[in-house]
């Protein structure tokens, strides 16, 4: 999908990851970084690994009373939203946030691990397990936990804390929800259905219940901290990462009217979902690449949010190299920050905008990645979900 009715500018970026916080900080930290030095915790959730969040002073972006009402996945999104609004010069600007459209990609379902563990312990010795649930949950659960479980309550907290209230919608569906969120905001702004939007998501990877969900499908890399390409030689698999990314997207007209400068512009997006066979996946990826009108003679640099899961990562790399050649510079940013699931695709868009806005690109994150000969004028962002769904977008220099 491409549209030229309204240019869609990226005018604000808010990031949180294992590297810390802030857009400029991430550019400085990542532009010359090597995956060997990426923060990874291989102990806490072993045999799985995780890119952990450093200590964050949440109160820098939200009142303490609101912070207490949230679980970390919601704090992540609310915090990164504040950073993005600040970066765009919109934070606490009432006429901006009260008309701003909020588009969130989120999971949810936070559990109370201690209550769950009590129930599992009790259930070892009893056959009337349904009754245990009825006995324990009404007494042990704190009443507001539900509000940390509903997927749309990241958006709800962002509205409360940052007063973003033009409209609000939340997408679900793991990595594809991030693709849908960006696509929705892009399409609405391009077509004049929205003038400015706050879009993004966050993922708290450091939860055993979420590791459990991923382990059910055997999607995790075990006993390794190898980056994406190298990991393929070891059987592949995913290393999740805690993080969040929010972007301020804005029509060029709206940005110019308030004198805001863009990092870059979003110029196209394609997405699909279907059977995960090699043939069908290749066809979908090739169709998406052709829909984005990338000029083959001016090969873009590529930021991939590859999960590291074996087949799909190889098929994605094959499709990208098949289109742009073996020397195309591909950076798998998931080697550095892990897979922040819902926030994966927005994170790629943010890293692309940062590179374009700084007239540069990232050094290879691992030896298998090819160096970029010149600073790119266009970057292709590609995310293939660990289980289903694929998305791509083109980000270009705004001037």
């Amino acid at each position, binding site marked *: 999908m491409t549209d030229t009715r309204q240019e869609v500018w990226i005018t604000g970026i808010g990031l949180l990851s294992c590297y810390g916080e802030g857009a400029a900080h991430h550019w400085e930290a990542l532009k010359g970084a090597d995956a060997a030095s990426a923060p990874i915790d291989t102990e806490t959730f072993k045999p799985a690994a995780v890119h952990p969040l450093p200590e964050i002073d949440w109160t820098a972006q939200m009142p303490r009373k609101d912070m207490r009402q949230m679980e970390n996945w919601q704090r992540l999104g609310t915090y990164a939203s504040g950073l993005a609004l600040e970066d765009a010069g919109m934070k606490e600007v009432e006429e901006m946030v009260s008309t701003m459209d909020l588009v969130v990609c989120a999971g949810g379902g936070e559990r109370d691990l201690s209550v769950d563990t009590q129930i599992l312990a009790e*259930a070892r010795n009893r056959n009337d397990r349904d009754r245990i649930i009825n006995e324990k949950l009404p007494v042990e*659960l704190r009443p507001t936990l539900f*509000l940390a479980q509903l997927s749309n*309550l990241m958006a*709800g907290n962002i509205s409360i804390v940052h007063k973003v209230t*033009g409209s609000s*919608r939340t997408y679900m569906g793991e990595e594809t929800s991030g693709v849908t969120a960006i696509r929705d905001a892009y399409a609405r702004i391009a077509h004049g259905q929205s003038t400015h939007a706050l879009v993004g998501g966050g993922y708290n990877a450091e939860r055993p219940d979420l590791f*459990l969900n991923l382990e*059910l499908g055997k999607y995790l890399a075990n006993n390794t901290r190898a980056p994406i390409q190298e990991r393929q030689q070891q059987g592949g698999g995913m290393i999740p990462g805690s993080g969040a990314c929010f972007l301020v997207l804005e029509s060029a007209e709206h940005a110019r009217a308030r004198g805001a400068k863009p990092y870059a512009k979003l110029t196209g997006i394609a997405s699909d979902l279907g059977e995960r066979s090699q043939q069908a996946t290749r066809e979908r990826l090739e169709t998406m690449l052709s829909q984005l009108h990338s000029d083959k003679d001016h090969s873009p640099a590529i930021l991939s949010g590859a999960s590291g899961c074996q087949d799909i990562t190889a098929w994605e790399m094959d499709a990208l190299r098949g289109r742009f050649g073996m020397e195309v510079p591909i950076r798998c940013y998931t080697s550095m920050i892990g897979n922040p699931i819902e926030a994966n695709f927005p994170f790629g868009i943010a890293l692309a905008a940062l590179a374009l806005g700084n007239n540069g690109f990232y050094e290879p994150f691992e030896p298998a990645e090819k160096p970029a000969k010149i600073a790119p004028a266009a970057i292709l962002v590609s995310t293939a979900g660990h289980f289903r769904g694929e998305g791509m977008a083109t980000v270009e220099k705004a001037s």
Partner: protein
Amino acid sequence: MSSQYTDHKGRPIVVVTGMGVVTSLGRGKKENWEALTAGKSGIRKVTRFPTEGLNTYIAGTVDFMEPEEVSAPGISYAMASATAGEALEQAGFADGDFPGPLFFAAPPVEMEWQHRFALMEENMAAEAGYDQLREAARSNPHDDMHKLVQLGTIAYRLSEKYGTKGLPISLSTACASGATAIQQGLEAIRRGETGAALCVASDGSVTAEGLIRFSLLSALTTRNDDPAGASRPFSKDRDGFIMSEGSAALVLESLEHAVNRGATILGVLRGVGEKADSFHRTRSSPDGAPVIKAIENALADAGMSADEIDYINAHGTSTPENDRMEYNSLRAVFGERIHEVPISSNKSMIGHTLTAGGAVEAVFSFLTMRESTIPPTINYDNPDPDIPLDVVPNVKREASVNAVLSNSFGFGGQNACLVFARDVA
């Protein structure tokens, strides 16, 4: 595009050509409409699981589907598949090759206790807790359980079954989700991305834990001894909502797309309005400002004035706060005329179908216009003097209805209002 196919803002007119519905009242439009207009309640004592110890143990469960597994995702998929099939058949797209995207209002899906206990059984040697479950998960393949806990799975499956195009969309705006799914289909057609969209909403999440969670927020009625009389929107003695299951599906098309293929037009989706509330996680702003704005936005988007609305399908949850706030907000927009416009709450009979509510109530709104019959608000035997509305008390009413406002509000400050019309012109 010829002006006969565009609205007051030059956008494609969007019409409905197929509808499907499942609620506790039954399966399909016919069963539901008969029960709804007869003033029947679908609320009953929960029998799906033991309810000892629960504060509320009545609900609008859907127990007549045959899900592959009795779980929230299992029941939600079974209902969604049925309503999508009904809508597509009516619209004439019954060949598994729908020419547009899927917008699915998805229920909260997560691992349920039956799954945790099953994993526990696989690894009884280990100490109780998540490490025990994780070890079990790693030891054996659990592909089905993995699919079940993916938030996008129901939409993926619907998309595969009915051949919708592109990446299927799963969305949530809590109890406004059903309206949001319709809104997003409307937006996509207005952008010219597609001539048709399939909008589905489903919620089969009545579990013990689900009831407990809402009870802990003091949101549910506790009138367990009188299930049919427990949902009492706009009554003085209303004391909470009923958790219910249901699903609805609507096929949306641009008018041009529908006319070109000779489809029967069931009604027009005239406009949508939204405004988020930053007041509180579960409560609306006391001044109703966001809801007022959402209604005004919907009317403006539809190119209509409040005077042209001749029936309101209320959110009407039967909680003390919602019904009062909804009345005050409507009065602010409609003025004194609000006391003459018929307004009823389907939730008096089907309870609150949560994620599905906005879509279920959209289907009932279109049926209201087509059948010239307004379903009643039942259990209205103790009117709240502070809410002097014409709630179509207890008995259906024959009336010509040309335009409907349908309200949906959700936790997290979600407000979405839809405006429907019976006829194109």
